[in-house]
């Protein structure tokens, strides 16, 4: 395998010694087939043990290694060096406070994810002995895309409405709510409306669409939100007129 030498410019932040984040460049000998995450791990193993970053599966299913690479939010394990020049800039994801180096504070995201009641709310609780829920392939297809989210937060880092109004519930959480609302086993749309139909819910979204552009799993949260707007708006109008809902 042939090697490349990459200049990896990483935004460092050590709260115990830095007043502000500062860039530090490492010279990294890389294999041709590496991803940016491999280069970061080389730095941590061989050059600078203090470099901090999250990662886990190395196969873009866990959502841990989201960084801003050359200005674009990406998963470190999905950013192949062959697609970049010899100088690569790596920063923590935007719109989240920096904890240390490439590690961001994601408490806000975790709270929002939980706030949309991301679990099945069935018509009636069935005991396990009553058997499984039945669902056709078509019914599964209706929500499957929105179940593919790996909570990597790339969408939040690129959403200007989240940047400017941090109370915005955000793309992933709203797409998740939509995933359950579209599930034929679920009747919880009304229960979720408090979050989804609030100002901070779908109505903060102005369909910039950046979230769907950067999503590594093609969840299309922007589409989910627009579809949720339709349903929410119809629900709102019908409730004004006094017709019941789900």
């Amino acid at each position, binding site marked *: 395998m042939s090697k490349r030498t990459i200049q990896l410019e990483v935004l460092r*932040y050590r*709260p*115990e010694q830095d007043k*502000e*984040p500062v860039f530090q460049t490492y010279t990294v000998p890389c294999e041709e087939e590496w991803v940016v995450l491999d280069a970061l791990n080389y730095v941590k193993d061989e050059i600078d043990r203090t470099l901090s970053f999250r990662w886990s599966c190395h196969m873009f299913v866990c959502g841990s290694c989201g960084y801003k690479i050359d*200005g674009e939010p990406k998963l470190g394990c999905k950013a192949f060096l062959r697609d970049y020049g010899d100088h690569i800039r790596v920063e923590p994801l*935007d*719109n989240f*406070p*920096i*904890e240390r180096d490439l590690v961001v*504070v994601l408490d806000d995201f975790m709270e929002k994810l939980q706030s949309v009641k991301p679990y099945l709310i069935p018509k009636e609780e069935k005991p396990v002995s009553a058997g499984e829920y039945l669902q056709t*392939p*078509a019914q599964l*297809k*209706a929500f499957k895309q929105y179940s593919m989210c790996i909570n990597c937060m790339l969408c939040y880092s690129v959403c*200007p409405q989240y*940047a*400017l109004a941090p109370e915005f519930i955000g793309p992933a959480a709203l797409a998740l709510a939509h995933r359950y609302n579209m599930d034929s086993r679920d009747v919880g749309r009304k229960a979720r409306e408090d979050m989804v139909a609030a100002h901070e819910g779908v109505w903060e979204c*102005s*369909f*910039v*669409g*950046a979230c*769907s*552009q950067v999503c590594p799993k093609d969840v*299309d949260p*922007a*589409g989910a939100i*627009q*579809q949720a707007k*339709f349903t929410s708006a119809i629900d709102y109008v019908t409730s004004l007129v006094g017709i019941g809902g789900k």
Partner: protein
Amino acid sequence: MDARKPYVRKVSKTSWFMTHARYKTYMLHEVSSIFVALYMVLLIWGLFALADGPQAWGNWMSFIESPLVILLSLIAFGFFVIHTMSWFKAVPQAMRIQKGEHFIPGNLIIGGHYAVLGGFSLFVLILAGVA
């Protein structure tokens, strides 16, 4: 863990969209609304002129044919095209049509929109031409 001191990066409320091409594109089609609003005002004025009579109508037409308005109209036309293109592109995302286990391909939906656009525009042009 008193060593925690999370760093919050500031975002400009007025120039955030200059930081990336995708934001500039978004602002471009958002700003088309200014020209939509201006055109609606022009049309309302035109309706009043129409009701008033040939002289008022003549004034309205003269305004339209003045150099500054011609320039603005050409710019507005550009923005209306931008609006149409960005709107059509967004339709398959906002409205998924499921048929069995498949969704109707986005390109088909968008293509259908352009077909209707073309047909309607041709109809209006022919109508205007033979009036």
